[in-house]
């Protein structure tokens, strides 16, 4: 079944919600693992989102203009002796899409995993 072009898949909505939540806590930019961890904590899931599912969804959201990304400064990564991160930001369009989806479906209740807010 083909989905509507402007609709969001559950994993995409979860990513946007996680991004908005991190933004509200002052973290405007986030990397892939951080969003996987945020999703796991928000729905109190046991498992982290799978690599393939997560990065494919992040790429789709970026292509649709709901996220923006940049590679962080290599000096910062080498100073902290870790690999470079790709940092994502939820765009204004992304926030609107997240709010519209929130209105269309209720927010996740902690401890109850919404159908589709899957981690795979």
């Amino acid at each position, binding site marked *: 079944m083909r989905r509507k072009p402007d609709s969001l898949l559950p994993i995409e909505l979860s990513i946007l919600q996680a991004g908005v939540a991190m933004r509200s806590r002052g973290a405007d930019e986030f990397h892939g693992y951080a969003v996987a961890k945020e999703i796991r904590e928000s729905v109190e899931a046991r498992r982290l989102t799978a*690599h393939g599912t997560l990065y494919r969804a*992040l790429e789709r959201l970026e292509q649709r203009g709901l996220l923006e990304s940049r590679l962080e400064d290599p000096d910062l990564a080498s100073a902290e002796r870790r690999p470079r991160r790709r940092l994502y930001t939820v765009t204004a369009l992304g926030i609107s899409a997240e709010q519209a989806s929130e209105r269309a479906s209720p927010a996740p209740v902690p401890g109850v995993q919404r159908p589709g807010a899957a981690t795979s």
Partner: protein
Amino acid sequence: MTTFAARQGTVASSIARAWLRVYSFGLPSALRERRATELESDLFEHESDAFASGASPGIVGIEIIGRLVRGMPADLMWRFQLEGPQMELNIPFERVTGLLLLALVLLIPVAVGIDGYDTTQVGWASELSRLGGVSATQTRVNVAIQIFSGLALVCAAAGFYAALAPRAKNLSVFAAFAMAAAGVVTFATSAMYFATSTLADDYVAGRGGDDILVTSRALALAMQNLGGAAGVLLTLSVCSLAVAAHKHGLVPGGLKWVLAFSFTCVLVGLAWQISGRDAWFFLMGGLLTLLLWLLAAGSCLLAGVGGHPRQSELGTSAA
């Protein structure tokens, strides 16, 4: 925390990296690198975060493998979506061809090497006794190697066809057909070898008499001839591949002299064989020189030290 336990997370990460290399093989480097950067960072953050919260390395390894396996369908979907008609793949066809040529260096001796028995009527009884003395395990190993060799030849034929058909259609069809046929012949030879070994066991155990000698000798003669047929098919196949490789400038031009020497040896050997003289020296010389060409051409293609592709070939290797 043991050293082994601490290593498990790293092993899981290595598996995740290896999977990335598999599903992103042949994609443009920008796409591959983007995914690799993200995965590298994710693995590092995951391990650091989990170890900081006191998780055991074994659990972290299982988590990483779990994320990897659950994400595989999405990884494959991502790859398939990128394979649209507008996608320009950069399959390193020279490297693939080089690997296949090097594989042939190992496969050809196995495929044509099922020989060397004394099949004369006088000497066959002692030959069969010797064969009966070979352990059952050794026989199974020999058969397994032959079957693997036959399978590998059929797969290599498909690989050569896929790699070379866009450039040299007729030569690649001929080379692939001859190589696949050699693979099938190798299967048949392995079955005959197994049957002969079983008969040899019966002969050594005293179960049967002259009928075993006659049947097993017939099988051995058939094996010898099939080994020769596999050799001829593989020689024709490699010659076609060599002509295609030199015609399209894929390997250094100097190697054509090695090939010419091999052809000459084989032709002289065949002429001597027909005239009833012992041609072993020439045929073996031709085969060894052909293996030398395969080794040199395969190494050159693998290392990217090719010849000078024709001007019309330039820019088509990405197709």
